[in-house]
């Protein structure tokens, strides 16, 4: 991992088209501004991790789960 030290107002440029700026620092919270093309997805890491976990849970649907789904449809 590359570590760079920046002050408020300073930026980092990634590839040619992503710029991250330190907007403000308040206590232990840092506000980051990110300028990037809309074709690039940007989200808090926790969101990515949660979505990965959900996909893994879905992919591991048990036989009982699949059967429950079939039964649900039968009732519908």
């Amino acid at each position, binding site marked *: 991992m590359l570590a760079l030290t920046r002050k408020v107002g300073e930026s980092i440029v990634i590839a040619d088209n992503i710029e991250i700026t330190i907007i403000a620092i308040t206590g232990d919270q840092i506000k980051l501004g990110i300028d990037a093309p809309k*074709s690039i997805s940007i989200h808090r890491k926790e969101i990515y991790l949660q979505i990965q976990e*959900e*996909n*893994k849970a879905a992919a591991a649907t048990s036989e*009982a*789960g699949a059967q*429950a789904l079939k039964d649900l*449809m039968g009732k*519908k």
Partner: protein
Amino acid sequence: MEILTRHFGTVDIEEDKIVGFNEGIFGFDTLKKFIVLYDGAEEGNPFAWLQSVEEKDVCLPMISPMFWFQEYSPDVDDELISQIGDLDPQALDLYTIVVIPDDIKDMTTNLKAPIIINRETKKGMQVIVNDDVYDIKHNLYEQLEKLKKAGE
């Protein structure tokens, strides 16, 4: 061609129904080929299955959210979706992934990260929507009960 599946044994599929996910899906970024399967008929079926063609045990249940949640209108940048081809809304199918825990009343769907498939280009991707209002775990059982009641 025949493929092995997690819940349906050996299934004969049409190769031109295979959807290419260039980036895979979250948590499974090495799996690039999936097919949408239905248990029984496709018409009117509330559930679909995203089955990996490369890894038989990876099969994710999905719903078409428009059928279940009429107001579901996620905000996704066009530039992001253009990865899977031209943005003809008629060609795009939207699904959300379902998690079925031991107690079916706890079943949820991920409205925050839907699967988008372009039927024309046969490409797909999973996107994270911009809206904060959609949950990663949105209870589906409650919605099912509402729909049943409405139908009565």
